[in-house]
């Protein structure tokens, strides 16, 4: 069965005709060509595929494209605005919160959801929040620092 799926992607109305078994991440990567969202596992552990659906962070590898019909979706490509990096992106660069860069989009999208719910997270809260985002390079030390700094600069505005 193939179906038509439409949603808003980073503020732009998009749609595609996909097989019903198409995962949301497959539609975003393969049909819509936004490859910033990555797939690092097949059991919903790694978090490389985290995006925002209707304002909440979700694992786009564990959602059907069909389930996103009519939703508002933001991926890593939609975080910087008008060529200006988001403070959270700046913080990852400033604090060396990435090495190979593969987990980074999911980390940033996850961090943005955390800060939305908890504008001033403690180090412990950040580490606990990240249980759904794996990184093999950084040992998390600098990711945690980056998220703290990103949250700080988002509060200041």
């Amino acid at each position, binding site marked *: 069965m193939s179906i038509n799926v439409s949603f808003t992607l980073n503020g732009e109305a998009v749609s595609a005709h996909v097989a019903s078994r198409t995962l949301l991440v497959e539609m975003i990567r393969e049909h819509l060509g936004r*490859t910033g969202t990555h*797939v690092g596992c097949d059991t919903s552990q*790694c978090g490389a595929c985290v995006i925002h659906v209707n304002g909440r962070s979700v694992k786009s590898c564990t959602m059907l494209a069909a389930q996103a019909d009519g939703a508002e979706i933001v991926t890593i490509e939609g975080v910087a605005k008008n060529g200006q990096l988001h403070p959270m992106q700046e913080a990852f660069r400033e604090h060396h919160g990435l*090495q190979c860069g593969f987990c980074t989009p999911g980390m940033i999208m996850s961090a943005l959801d955390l800060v939305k719910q908890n504008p001033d997270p403690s180090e412990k809260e*950040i580490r606990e929040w*990240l249980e759904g985002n794996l990184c093999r390079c950084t*040992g998390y030390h600098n990711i945690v620092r980056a998220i703290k700094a990103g949250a700080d600069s988002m509060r200041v505005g």
Partner: protein
Amino acid sequence: MTENGFGAAVRRKEDYRFITGRGQFVDDINRPHQLYAQIIRSPIAHGKINKVDVDAAIAMSGVVAVFTGADMAADGVGGIPCGWGITSKDGSPMVEPGHPPLAAECVRYVGDQVAVVLAETLAIARDAAELVDVDYAELPSVANLESASADGAPLVWDDAKGNVCFDWEIGDKSATDAAFASADQVVTIDIVNNRLIANAMEPRAAIGDYDAGKDEYTLYTTSQNPHVIRMLMGAFVLSIPEHKLRVIAPDVGGGFGSKICHYAEEAIVTWASRKVNRPVKWTADRSESFISDAHGRDHVSHAELAMSKDGDFLGLRVSTRANLGAYLSTFGPAVPTILYATLLAGSYKTPAIHAEVKAMFTHTVPVDSYRGAGRPEASYLLERLVDKAAKQTGIDPIELRRRNFIQPEDFPYQTPVALEYDTGDYDAAMVKAIELADYANFDKRREESAARGKLRGVGISTYIEACGIAPSNVAGALGARAGLYEVGTVRVNPTGSVTVLTGSHSHGQGHETTFAQLVVEELGVDFDNIDIVHGDTGKVPFGMGTYGSRSAAVGGVALMNALEKIRTKAKKIAAHLLEASEDDIEFKDGQLSVAGTDRSVAFGDVAMAAYVPHNYPLETLEPGLEETAFYDPKNFTFPAGCHICEVEVDPDTGVVEVVRFTAGDDFGRIINPMIVDGQVHGGVTQGIGQALYEQCVYDDSGQLLTGSMMDYCLPKADNVPNFAVTTNVTPCTHNVLGVKGCGEAGAIGSPPAVINAVLNALSDYNVDDLQMPATPERVWQAMQGNG
């Protein structure tokens, strides 16, 4: 310090594309009209292939082809080669079985490749793969070292009797025996170095793209060393000459050794692309990675340390069995030999050492490098043994180490196991770590933990490693079948910007930044006007790639040598432009000036003159400003250091939490401290993973039980603390940068520090030994006396 030059914590050039989702990993690449490959893999550990029936799969709409091992064999496709040859004690060469990319006669591990389906979509390829009917005659198998070593064990290869690939030794046996004969005391230990799976966050992927018009192949692959893949696959597997084969390793999402080896899938997609005359793309899903990426470690060892009554180390005797898996992977035989047993001297003046290593075949995934590759196994064995010796002798573990350290005045120091250490100051690094760790106040923290019902322990390790692999003649003597130099090209563009082509490959290490810092330092070119190109055999002349913490110590030095050639030529051009003698030209901060005068020319103008040679010494100098250097190091480099770990153990459950971790490392001179600290954080976390969480487990029938991230436990953010990191610098004596390498140290020093800390925490429980990973149940059982 020059801004953005050597030693500055420059923010990374490469970050912008990654934080905005514009990195380009292999799976992000799509070629026009590409097909999708799904590999059919063996579901059993050992079996004869009676028949592969592909008819139903080929009949499915959207399927373009199905290929088997017989198809590849009929095309004359060769086996995947091994990069190292090891010779046994008795002089016989290692048993080196064939390794066809698709198995045609027999499968030898769960995951072994049997056939490939090519289809218009990945979903169709997967549907069709289920229709490929492989008839196996299942055979008995051996899933681990113990069962492979048993009398009458089923054989992985008929010509490897007892499943032994080689039985190798190093060191002086009789001198070691004599040391034990004269010893006052002996400490023994039995050590398991647990099998691990690298799990780089990016799964492996490969795209083969054959251009029939030019009869040329392009392979996009997740590799740490694209030139090595071109060499191995082109020459040995597919017989494609280098000029017709381009290998591109674009952004690669972590390697940790698992992306060094040449893998079957690379050859399959490249070969298949020509067969169907369309690009062929394969991307592993994580479940597939678990059963097809090379695994790491997997040693079982017995070791004995002979000591005088005062605790002086007199002799070390080690016997190790190492699991190589079912086939020999690219570096497989080197890991438990050259990269392991040569490090058994550690940082100590043990005068006599003898080690024997029996490498075994099993019906499991091939075993190869994983961060540290051999060196973590050596350091874990030694540092557990030394701690056990401290306990047995009653000598403080720090004091015992200090008493036996090779002293600064002993360098260069020839170990009894082949290596010559050039420099180091082990006590200085240890003192720094002890201070940073606030070791003196540990007892206070232990009391505070006890008040909360937790058992606190502290553990130390002092490691050494050999990096910057390798001097080619030494590597060759040790069995390497290729040289291990590195290549750098510096292309100064006409307007003065610089393009560097390096044979090193960055998959997280940040070479685009650190190598640019070297250019800033040497040529004074603005940081933003420098580009580092890597990972493409079509652009970079040659290279051996990135592993063994070799990029700065070998690739960086090759770049420095090329930069020196640029400086020399630039001075010649400037001398002409300024009508001065070449010997009088000074090159500093991007300006070439005549010493003692105010006459100077900017480097950019020299570059322009080189390419627009209207006023140029054409009779003595050719136009252009581009230089290449091949650099082969004189020796390995020897990073060393001290790691100190504090843990809390929950006595009710056995849960271990790492609450403090301190690293004091000597990496030689440091190009970018921010990046170096990051490498330590990541390495230590992988080491903590090995010590507490990670373990690859096969059942007796050779099925992988830890085949997903649901069961193979990678450390998460809440499993590790913030790290305290410091360095002590003794510059490497034999390279111009004075660098040693930092990529693996974290994973080498940390596991023994963690386990020593856990045992220290359990000191009231009479637990002598604890194998990794120290899972909650294992710790709890040990506390119940069931260790």
